[in-house]
């Protein structure tokens, strides 16, 4: 008698053509999509050149997104994009996104309908776990796995054990997906879900927008997780209908699925949360912060928080206000569509009038690439996902992770704070 399976395990079993899988089992699974960006794809192309196959398994199931260092910041990054561009032309890759069409990969692919419920997706970017918000299994890999995936359409996986997060209650006005995931990482630590799937369940999910869910799934990797995954509900179906023509498949965990740990989180009890340097687990709620932590820079954007919900809440707070003296506020809509929508809604005007700058979509500042690199001793409140040593620039600069609401309120105040009631 086989035991029950989690949502993740069911998706993996189907893609490995097996009736049943369990934690720890090594499988080979079919891939629905293989993703790479301008940093990881050149390395994958180098590996592919060593392979005897030569071609790609399916030109329609590969997405190459130039998003980290574009428009190119220097000659080397230009060379890397050129390498990927030529590869895309040679192999007639359907989903190649360059300047003018590109967006930050994990905001772009769901928006373009390339990722749907029930998929197995690998990407040579650690935040590939974002698509779990749609009820897909997706996980980050390195360039060699990407190369093998592009050539064969398959990848090997160790079936993960699971941790269940039962979300209940209704989150408060200023509590977003970012606060939920920062709270979880603070609770279980940066290796709390090491090698495991993070399965989100519970009545509270219905009060989380798709953008909230993308943010939560996006940062599963920051707890060490292999993936994060949400059940499919009406909101997901609506999103998929609006964005994708692809058929999708809904999976539900078995009632007797095995979870190694279970947590219940009352969303109504959460407060706006900040992760202090230099680990995402160093969390405090804003109302626990007693000292005045001055900031030099604020960043609102990234694959974690560069979507419409994020820009709207930032604009709501910045409307008619000014960014504090000596604070640089950098706002980055994650895709061209989001950029355009923000323009239509008048958000860009609000940002510029408040004294912020608005950038073309890029991962730039999140990883200290460009467009907001920090000097020695500087401090940033950022809606991005990592606050490691030197992440946003100088080894002695600091990143505090927070929601767009907290970042906007802090940019206005000049120190870390939260929106007033």
């Amino acid at each position, binding site marked *: 008698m086989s035991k029950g399976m989690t949502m993740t395990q069911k998706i993996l079993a189907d893609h490995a053509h097996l009736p049943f899988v369990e934690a720890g089992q*090594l499988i080979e699974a079919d891939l629905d999509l293989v993703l790479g960006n301008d*940093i*990881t794809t*050149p*390395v994958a192309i*180098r*590996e592919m050149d*060593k*392979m*005897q*196959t030569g071609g790609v398994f399916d030109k329609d199931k590969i997405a190459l997104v130039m998003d*980290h*260092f574009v428009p190119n*910041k*220097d000659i*080397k*990054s230009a*060379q*890397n994009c050129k390498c990927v561009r030529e590869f895309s032309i040679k192999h007639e890759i359907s989903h190649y996104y360059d300047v003018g069409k590109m967006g930050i990969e994990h905001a772009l692919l769901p928006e373009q309908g390339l990722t749907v419920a029930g998929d197995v997706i690998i*990407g*040579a*970017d*650690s935040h*590939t776990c974002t698509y779990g918000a749609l009820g897909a299994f997706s996980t*980050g*890999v*390195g*360039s*060699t*796995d990407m*190369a*093998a995936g592009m*050539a*064969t359409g398959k990848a*090997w996986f160790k079936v993960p054990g699971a941790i269940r997060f039962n979300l209940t209650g209704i989150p408060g006005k200023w509590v977003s997906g970012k606060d939920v995931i920062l709270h979880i990482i603070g609770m279980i630590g*940066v*290796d709390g879900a*090491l*090698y495991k799937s993070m399965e989100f369940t519970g009545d509270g999910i219905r009060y989380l927008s798709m953008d909230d869910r993308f943010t939560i799934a996006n940062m599963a*990797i920051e707890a*060490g997780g*292999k993936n994060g995954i949400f059940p499919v509900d009406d909101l997901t179906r609506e999103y998929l209908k609006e964005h994708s023509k692809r058929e999708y498949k809904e999976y539900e965990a078995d009632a007797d699925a095995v979870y190694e740990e279970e947590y219940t989180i009352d969303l109504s009890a959460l407060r706006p949360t900040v992760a202090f340097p230099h*680990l995402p687990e160093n969390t405090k709620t804003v109302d626990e912060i007693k000292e005045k932590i001055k900031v030099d820079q604020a960043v609102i954007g990234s694959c974690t928080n560069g979507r419409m919900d994020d820009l709207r809440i930032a604009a709501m707070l910045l409307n008619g206000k000014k960014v504090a003296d000596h604070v640089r506020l950098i706002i980055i809509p994650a895709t061209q569509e989001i950029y355009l929508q923000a323009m239509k809604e008048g958000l860009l005007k609000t940002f510029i009038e408040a004294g912020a700058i608005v950038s073309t979509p890029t991962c730039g500042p999140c*990883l*200290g*690439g460009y467009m907001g*690199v920090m000097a020695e001793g500087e401090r940033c409140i950022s809606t991005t996902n*990592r606050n*490691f*040593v*030197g*992440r946003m620039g100088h*080894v002695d600069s600091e990143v505090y992770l927070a929601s767009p609401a907290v970042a906007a309120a802090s940019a206005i105040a000049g120190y870390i704070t939260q929106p007033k009631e």
Partner: protein
Amino acid sequence: MKANGTAYKYGDNVDTDVIIPARYLAIQDVKELSTHAMEDIDTEFVKKIKPGDLVVGGKNFGCGSSREHAPIVLKASGVSCVIAKTFARIFYRNAINIGLAIIECPEAADAIEDGDTVEVDFDSGMIKDVTKDQTFKGQPFPEFMQKIIESEGLINYINKKQ
């Protein structure tokens, strides 16, 4: 296969941003890239590391970004093996896929001190701290992963299978 060298020890959560900072990721030449290995955690690293030396870490070694550049620069710097309490999963995959030896062994990761001479026998999984004259048994790889390592990486493994 064996490793033998001086061990350089670091703490928990050594992330891929300190192993190879993103500001160098546009560099494709592995030799040039590896001159920045571990720069943000240990500015002396590239000066002191000799071929065969080992890196010892605590828990969650290699957390963060999926950049394969991280295990690549460690291997190119001459690191023969990384011993840690646990590894972050993408780093773990990447190390196997590019043929950098890694071993999980919490006891060895605790006991070995910076500068100790350490020997590792990959076939048996035995780790010996020569300086302290202590031995530890590391976590052996599943057979499937051993085959990838024996093939010196995933690409060779796939080429052989076809």
